[in-house]
């Protein structure tokens, strides 16, 4: 082969290093600067907040980093178990919210009377912030665990429900006209036209809801004492003045939140492939 492709940048083992550098370098530099400023501020004594280095210099926190799977019984568990407990609550309530939200959304979207009757109520309820639901659900359900589940549910259900209803209402006339001419059965209309047409809206709702429900579980757990979960873990660490543990927990929360969103994005791309 006499001709070779002109390549821009240095190639090492088939990887374009120059391109990789230009993608990775800016965020890396930004993070390093951010951490350095934070560290400097806490070293100088302007703030009492410990610097990022405390994650490793503090012995308790170091243990938490290196042993995420420890379990000493009760609520004294490693970060992995704390996070998992919170995620399980989200999984249960989010699934329930998805089922109820999509189901009710379709009912509302297809029934003008129902839509008229319920729209104002839903628009009101969805503006209630997750934390405000905590006392209500504690009063109503009496126990921490179901109350936490309810708070996530009630936070996640509105965006799913409202987006689904909009998606169903916005089915283009084109599709409905075809459905009318070929007199498609109710069942076929639902699966072949209504659901695929509303799917992008439903997914928008689902993606908003997954981020919201992750936010809500943290908020809910903070005020619910005595449960395993990353929210309550933060609260307890703060009460005992283990601030570097709080910082570690924030890292976990941020990473999980990011992963949840990426997962929904991936799922959406997979299901709606080719559209």
């Amino acid at each position, binding site marked *: 082969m006499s001709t070779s492709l002109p390549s821009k940048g240095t190639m090492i083992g088939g990887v374009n290093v120059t391109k990789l550098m230009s993608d990775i370098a800016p965020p890396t530099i930004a993070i390093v600067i951010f951490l350095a400023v934070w560290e400097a501020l806490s070293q100088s004594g302007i703030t009492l907040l410990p610097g990022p280095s405390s994650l490793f210099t503090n012995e308790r926190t170091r243990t938490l980093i290196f042993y995420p799977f420890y379990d000493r019984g009760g609520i004294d568990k490693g970060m992995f178990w704390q996070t998992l407990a919170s995620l399980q609550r989200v999984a249960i309530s989010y699934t329930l919210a998805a089922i109820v939200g999509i189901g009710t959304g379709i009912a509302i979207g297809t029934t003008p009377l129902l839509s008229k009757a319920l729209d104002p109520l839903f628009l009101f309820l969805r503006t209630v912030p997750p934390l405000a639901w905590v006392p209500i659900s504690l009063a109503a359900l009496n126990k921490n665990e179901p109350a936490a589940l309810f708070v996530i549910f009630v936070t996640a259900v509105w965006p799913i429900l409202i987006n689904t209803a909009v998606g169903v209402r916005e089915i283009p006339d084109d599709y409905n006209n075809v459905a009318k001419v*070929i007199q*498609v059965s109710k069942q076929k209309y639902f699966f072949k036209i209504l659901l695929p047409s509303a*799917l992008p809206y439903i997914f928008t709702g689902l993606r908003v809801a997954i981020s919201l429900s992750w936010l809500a579980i943290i908020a809910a757990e903070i005020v619910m004492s005595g449960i395993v979960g990353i929210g309550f873990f933060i609260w307890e660490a703060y009460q005992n003045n283990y601030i570097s543990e709080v910082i570690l927990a924030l890292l976990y929360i941020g990473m999980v939140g990011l992963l949840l969103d990426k997962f929904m994005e991936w799922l959406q791309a997979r299901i709606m492939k080719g559209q």
Partner: protein
Amino acid sequence: MVATQANRSPSPSKSVPLIEIDNVTKIYPSTAGDNVVIKDISLEIHAGEFVCVIGHSGCGKSTMLNTVSGFATPDKGEVRKNGKKVTGPGPDRMTVFQSYSLMPWLSAYQNVYLALDSVHPTKSKADKDHIVREHLTMVGLGEAMEKKPPQLSGGMRQRVAIARAFCLYPEILILDEPFGALDAITKEEMQEEVANIVANHDATVLMVTHDVDECLFLADRLVMMTNGPGATIGEILEIPFPRPRDRNQIMEDPRYYELRNRALDFLYSGLEID
């Protein structure tokens, strides 16, 4: 060869009309008073006829079409099919929409199959598969059946819509400016394909268009509508060319220009009066 096809054009006086548009008026109420779109339109369409409707934009051509397809209900008069009043849309009056109206999440095959399956649920799966493949192949999409509409060009999408319509063997096929969005070459190809399929299926067609040449190539009769509001039928031209038609051949016929000029005169004089 021409003689065998020449009697395809039926004589209106003898047969019972398939479609009767009987004194149809359609009014759209608006805040500034009622808007009479079409007024006292009467037209008979016989089985096997290809009728084109032409007129200026907004003259109510599509409204007239919609009263036949059943999407619009006349405020006065009625549309009858085989003597029975038309009350709503149905596959016996299958429509090819201007915007193709394909489901983008279904492949070409699935789009056609959905219509056939919905209209003939009792047909066997093998039969339906055969009919769908036959019609997609007929419109030149034999190789692109598994593609979804976003992967197809405008012309190919319209072909899918046409395959979907013809596979139902509707009693009358309604085409609403089906080639409006296509480029000139694709348009001519599609006109020829439609002419062939119509001949093979012995179909009855009611088509709205802007294009006089298209009418002269495809239609048995050309219905020219006056300008709205209150549009009505101004004049009807019989297109006498024998079938199958060859575009170049009919263009050499002196009657072609006579008809073409009359149609254009009608359209332009309509403009001047307004």
